[in-house]
């Protein structure tokens, strides 16, 4: 089963997507999910919170589940426990999402199989913010080894805002 793990594939996903359902988005500003969603908002994406315990985060209405989101979703980005991934993968498929993304530290082969079988791109054990910043943003400025070797002009997606 094919997880997307290369620069070209990750860049394609990030360039083609606009709406991200962030499952388990915390309302606390210092939590990693908040960091990631705020970053993605600032780089031209819409981050829709899926959190039954909050009403609004980062200016967006919270929904209790993926299927309750009233607009189409490109990426389902998961900040929940690994054993919840298969159900979330099924919900992502039902929602018609194009990408099922499990955050840094998360791997679940069953969920990956479910999403992959339905034609979704699967990303495992990566942070959506870090990958965006690595490939199209400022992670390079933080001294991180991005792995990018290219003589093409740098892509700047902040202009998409």
């Amino acid at each position, binding site marked *: 089963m094919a997880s997307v793990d290369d620069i070209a*594939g990750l860049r394609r996903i990030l360039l083609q997507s606009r709406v991200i359902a962030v499952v388990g988005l915390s309302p606390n500003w*210092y939590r990693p999910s908040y960091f990631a969603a705020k970053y993605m908002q600032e780089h031209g994406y819409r981050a829709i919170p899926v959190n039954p315990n909050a009403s609004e985060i980062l200016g967006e209405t919270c929904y209790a589940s993926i299927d309750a989101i009233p607009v189409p979703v490109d990426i389902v980005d998961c900040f929940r426990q690994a054993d919840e991934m298969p159900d979330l993968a099924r919900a992502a498929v039902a929602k018609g999402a194009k990408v099922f993304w499990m955050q840094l*530290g998360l791997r679940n082969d069953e969920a990956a199989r479910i999403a992959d079988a339905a034609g979704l791109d699967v990303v495992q054990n990566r942070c959506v913010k870090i990958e965006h910043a690595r490939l199209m943003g*400022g992670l390079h400025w933080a*001294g991180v080894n991005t792995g990018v*070797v290219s003589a093409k002009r740098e892509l700047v997606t902040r202009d998409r805002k």
Partner: protein
Amino acid sequence: MTDRAFGFDTLCLHAGQIPDAATGARALPIYQTTSFVFDSADHAASLFNLQTFGNVYSRISNPTVAALEERVAALEGGRAALAASTGMAAQMLALLTLCRHGDHIVAARTLYGGTYSQLATTFDQFGIGVTFVDADDPAAFRAALLPTTKALYAETIGNPQLNVCDIASLSAVAHEAGIPLVVDNTMASPFLCRPFEHGADIVIHSVTKYLGGHGTTMGGVVVESGKFPWDNGKFPQMTEPSRGYHGVRFYETFGDFGFTMKARMETMRTLGPTLAPLSAFLLLQGIETLHLRMPRHSESALAVAQHLAAHPAVEWVNYPLLPGNRYEPIARRYLPRGAGGILTFGVRGGKIGGAPAGVRFIEGVQFLSHLANIGDAKTLVIHPASTTHRQLTEDEQRAAGVTPEMIRLSIGLESLDDILWDLDQALEKSQR
């Protein structure tokens, strides 16, 4: 699909620098600015909260310096790097990110003199204890561990003793204790040895030396492997909300580059030994030819070592890859592409007319440069007993591995025949 693993030589030229977004400039622009404008108050807040990556103030990050950081990280096979004004500053930033008052470090006794002083004197003032042990004995490192020990520290190749570190064995001792192995890789450069491949967790460079390679510019770098488990309970500063950065948990938030983020946003931000953008540019110019220079430094040094070993005015020669050297077996394991440009030798003959033979040799060289540095493109020569170690008694010098007849050479890129000629004629003068 997997990404292409580019070769070391390609990374020397490209890693960390793609053409500038604004202008398409192919060479690295020198961003000679202290500060960077914010798009809005909200953008400023996000930057200060570390929610978005960007430049605020050049004490913390700068695009020209970032190119150097990423390039060294790539060459070492590491995850992330932080540049500093000097190698001494880089090492201080790494160790002060790991240790606080009351903590402890176990270090090789053969560490470079400046490092030894920083640990034994300045860190002592900070309340950080250091135990120095036999660099060749992993069991001595293990025996010196305390519950408060937060790092092991050693050098790939010691200076001036030219001892070669058994990195894998020290890494095993460190990891058994749940602490990182920090390795100063200045003398080898990542061309000759990549300590992460042998289990090191943090690598330090004085970029001033072989990476920069031309004796023009001071600089240092800290690189993290991205593989150390900072949540093992020994490093609450990596897992608990940061007092120095309003509650951020560095390991949880930044994962495998959390150590570098903490070193940058807390240690560098508050202590301030920043690398200048122009310095980063000059050092990167050097790195672009690292892969061409290191083989030549190493080949010429070995040839010089062999030449001197057969010279009647030379008592002994120390070079790790010289057949019969006590470190030859371990050097063949860790330094298969060469042992770098540094060697030492003893000039035969004691004091004649009050001046030791070593001093007479130094005064006799024509184009070999008498100065206190290593890793220049030019050949350098020094008599440690009368210069870098002259404040010590002869007994103290011997304890530091410095004998009255010892000469240290840093072999440069000149014609090998000319280097040998200058050595020979100066040796001849030393015997008169």
